[in-house]
C-alpha cells in the first residue's frame, strides 16, 4: 500500500456578490414581512456584530446569480491562485446549507457551472460545518493518492430564504404581522457568498502554502435536537415524521416548516458543549493554545459571552485575543463559506509567516457540531 501523502492548500478563493450592503439597507434586499420593518433586526445585529454583508439579490430582491454559480466562481479563483485551471481539477467536494435544487446534489450543479472536464464530485449538505466535511473529503482523497488536484468549495444563497414569501401566510407570522424571533433573527445574521480551497500533494512553487495537519469534526447530535433547522415547525422539530415532506409543500409552508429557524435557548447549551469539545482537544494535546499563532473562528469573538471567555481563561484554553482574525463584521456570516472567505482575507492580510500555525474553528449550531482544522504555513 502507498504511504499517505502530505497535503497542502495551494490556492484559496472567495466570491462575494455585489457591493457591501450596510445594515440600513438589509430589508431592501431581503424584503419586509407584511411590508413592515423588522422589530428585531437591530438587536440581532448588535448581537452578531455584522456591519456590512453581501447579497446575491439586488435592492429590489431580484437574484443576480445562483448558489452554484457563486461556488464555481470561488473554485475558479482558488484554482487561479494555485496557477491551475478547471481542466486540472479531478475532484470537487462542495458544501452548502441549501443548494439551488432540492435534487441533485450541489456538487453536480457547481460542476455544471464550472465546466472543465469529467471529474469526481461529492456534495456535503449541513450548515457551517459542511465546509470542513468537504475539506476532509478533499484532503483524504489527495492524502490517499486518489487525486492530485482537489477542491473543497462552499457557498450560500441564504437571502433567498429570507424573502417574505417564506413566512407570509404561515404560522410563523402572528395576528399582528410580527415574525417569530426564531425566524427573524437569522434574516439579519446570514448572507451570501462562496469560498474554496485547492489541495495538492506538494506546496506551491512560490509563496506560502498551508499544510493541512488535521481536520476533526465532532457531532453532538446524540444529545441535542436540531438547534438551527429548516423543514419542521418549531413545536414538532424533534419528530422526523412531522417534517415538511409528509405534509406536502403547501401545508408545510402554512405550519411554518419551510423556513430557517434558530432555537436560542438550545444555542446557549450547544455553545457550552462546543467549549467542552474544544477543551477535550486541549486536554488531549491535539490543540496547544500557546502554539496557535492565528485563530480563525467562525463565531464572532464579540458574541462569546463573558462567562465563556472567563471559563477559557480559567482553564488555560484561551487563545489570546490579538491572535484572532475575523472579517465577519465586514463580509457577514456566510454559513459554510465563511471559513474560506475568512481564510482568503487572512492570507491577503499578510499576517502569516512560514512555520506559523493557523487554527480554524467551525462551530455549527444546526444539530450541535464543531470542526477544527489545523494548518501550518510552509514556503
Amino acid at each position, binding site marked *: 500500500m502507498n504511504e499517505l501523502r502530505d497535503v497542502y492548500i495551494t490556492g484559496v478563493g472567495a466570491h462575494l456578490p455585489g457591493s457591501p450592503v450596510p445594515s440600513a439597507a438589509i430589508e431592501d434586499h431581503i424584503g419586509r414581512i407584511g411590508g413592515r420593518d423588522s422589530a428585531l433586526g437591530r438587536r440581532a445585529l448588535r448581537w452578531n456584530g455584522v456591519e456590512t454583508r453581501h447579497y446575491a439579490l439586488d435592492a429590489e430582491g431580484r437574484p443576480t446569480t445562483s448558489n452554484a454559480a457563486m461556488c464555481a466562481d470561488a473554485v475558479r479563483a482558488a484554482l487561479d491562485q494555485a496557477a491551475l485551471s478547471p481542466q486540472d481539477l479531478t475532484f470537487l467536494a462542495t458544501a452548502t446549507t441549501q443548494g439551488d435544487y432540492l435534487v441533485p446534489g450541489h456538487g453536480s450543479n457547481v460542476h455544471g457551472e464550472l465546466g472543465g472536464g469529467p471529474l469526481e464530485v461529492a456534495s456535503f449538505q449541513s450548515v457551517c460545518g459542511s465546509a470542513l466535511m468537504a475539506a476532509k473529503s478533499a484532503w483524504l482523497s489527495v492524502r490517499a493518492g486518489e487525486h492530485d488536484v482537489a477542491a473543497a468549495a462552499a457557498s450560500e444563497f441564504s437571502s433567498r430564504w429570507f424573502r417574505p414569501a417564506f413566512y407570509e401566510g404561515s404560522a410563523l407570522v402572528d395576528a399582528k404581522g410580527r415574525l417569530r424571533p426564531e425566524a427573524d433573527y437569522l434574516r439579519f445574521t446570514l448572507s451570501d457568498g462562496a469560498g474554496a480551497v485547492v489541495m495538492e500533494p506538494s506546496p506551491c512553487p512560490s509563496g506560502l502554502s498551508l499544510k493541512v495537519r488535521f481536520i476533526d469534526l465532532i457531532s453532538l447530535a446524540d444529545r441535542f435536537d436540531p438547534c438551527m433547522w429548516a423543514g419542521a415547525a418549531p413545536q414538532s422539530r424533534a419528530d422526523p415524521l412531522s417534517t415538511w415532506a409528509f405534509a406536502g409543500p403547501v401545508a408545510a409552508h402554512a405550519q411554518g416548516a419551510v423556513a430557517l429557524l434558530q432555537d436560542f435557548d438550545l444555542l446557549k447549551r450547544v455553545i457550552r458543549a462546543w467549549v*467542552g469539545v474544544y477543551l477535550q482537544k486541549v486536554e488531549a494535546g491535539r490543540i496547544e493554545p500557546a502554539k496557535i499563532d492565528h485563530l480563525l473562528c467562525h463565531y464572532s469573538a464579540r458574541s462569546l459571552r463573558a462567562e465563556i471567555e472567563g471559563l477559557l481563561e480559567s482553564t488555560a484554553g484561551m487563545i489570546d485575543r490579538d491572535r484572532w482574525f475575523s472579517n465577519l463584521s465586514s463580509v457577514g456570516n456566510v454559513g459554510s463559506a465563511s471559513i474560506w472567505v475568512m481564510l482568503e482575507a487572512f492570507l491577503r492580510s499578510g499576517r502569516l509567516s512560514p512555520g506559523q500555525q493557523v487554527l480554524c474553528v467551525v462551530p455549527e449550531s444546526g444539530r450541535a457540531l464543531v470542526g477544527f482544522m489545523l494548518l501550518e504555513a510552509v514556503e
Partner: protein
Amino acid sequence: MTGVPDVLRQLTIVFTEFEGRLEQTPLIRKLTRGRFDLADYQAFLVGLRQQVADGALWMSRAASNIDERHLELRSALMRHAVTEHRDFRLLEGDYVTSGGDLAVIQGAEKNLGSEALSAWMFHEASRPNPFGLLGAMWIIEGLGSIKAAEWGRLVQRRLGLPDEALRFLLYHGENDLEHIKEFEAMLAMVLPDAAVAAKIVKTARVTARLYALQIEEITGD
C-alpha cells in the same frame, strides 16, 4: 497537569459531558421537547428534594474531616453548608405552591439514583481530608448556577406557573462568574498535587454519573 487551570479544564469537560447525558434523560427530553406536564414538575421536585436535603449534611461531614492544616477550606465548606442547608424547604414550598401535598414530598423515598448518590457522598465525606468532594461540588454547584435557572425558565414557559412555584430553580443561577472564582480559590487550597487532582476529577465523574442516574429515575407517569 495538576495545577488549578488543568483541573478546572478537566472538570469543565466532565461537566459538559454530564450536560450531554442529562439532555438524553427522559425527563429533560420531555422538558426540552415541550411534553413536560405538572406531574413531571412535581416528580422532579420530589426527586431532587432528598438529595438537596442531604447536600449540606455531607458537606458538614466533609468539613468535620478536614484537618487543621486546611482550616481555610474547612471554613469555606462550613459557610457553604450553612448557606444551603435550608434549600430543601424552598423545594417543598414550590411543590405545595404548584398544588402538591407537603406530606407527599416530605415522605417520599429516595429514588435509585438518589440512594446511590447519597451513599457515595457520605462515604467520601467520611474519609480524612476528602478533597475529592471539590469535584462533587463542581458538578452540583454547576447544576445550581447553570442548569437550574435554565430548567426553571423552560418549566415556567411550559406550565405557566408563577415565580413562587419555581423559587428553587429560579433563585439559583446568579453570579456564575463569582462561583467560579470562589471555586478556583478552594482548588488553590489543595493544588497542585497529582493525587488530589486525580481524585477531584474522578469524584466529579462519579458524582455526575450518579446524578444523571437520579434524573433518569424521575418520571411523572
